[in-house]
């Protein structure tokens, strides 16, 4: 079951949506359909010509069927990532 998400509860997660967008936030809620509630959420906008931009979006409720990947962010590794100099194309959307 999506009990699997329990280990991510209240942790900082990296979420990739099927439309190609990337969100980061705290996983405060979820259910068995992988509907999610993210708090302190921000959208991470990747670009090959500009550094990564983070746009705060507050609380986000995401419908399960638009979820692609949920990754647990390792805070230590995260602090080592140089987002100000990371220029990369966004990940292609998951066309369903």
């Amino acid at each position, binding site marked *: 079951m999506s009990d699997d998400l329990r280990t991510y509860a209240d942790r900082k997660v990296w979420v990739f949506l*099927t439309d190609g967008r990337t969100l980061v936030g705290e996983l405060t809620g979820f259910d068995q359909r992988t509907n999610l509630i993210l708090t302190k959420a921000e959208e991470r906008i990747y670009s090959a010509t500009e550094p990564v931009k983070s746009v705060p979006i507050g609380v986000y409720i995401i419908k399960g069927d638009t979820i692609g990947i949920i990754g647990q962010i390792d805070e230590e590794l995260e602090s*080592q*990532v140089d987002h100000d100099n990371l220029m990369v194309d966004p*990940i*292609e959307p998951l066309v369903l």
Partner: protein
Amino acid sequence: MLFYSFFKTLVGQQVTVELKNDLAITGLLVSVDQFLNIKLDNIKVVEESRYPHMMAVKNCFIRGSVVRYVQLPAASVDTALLQDAARRERQQQPAGRK
């Protein structure tokens, strides 16, 4: 149900999950659920230079609906047993469903 049971026997193995956008993630299979959602630990993205987006992510949950392929270690798949189980499951289905 057969593939769910099958994937459950592979927990603990190193697998590569290829998504429908060609992104491939290798890692240790931690768990699978009835929707074939997959949880991987100690992940590594194939072609990391092209996909540095997940640098700070060590374990992840992949929604079953976005998976295209799962590459498995051949040695841990008993194809004869799997074929047999598939046949048996087919026989158990009610008549008329083909």
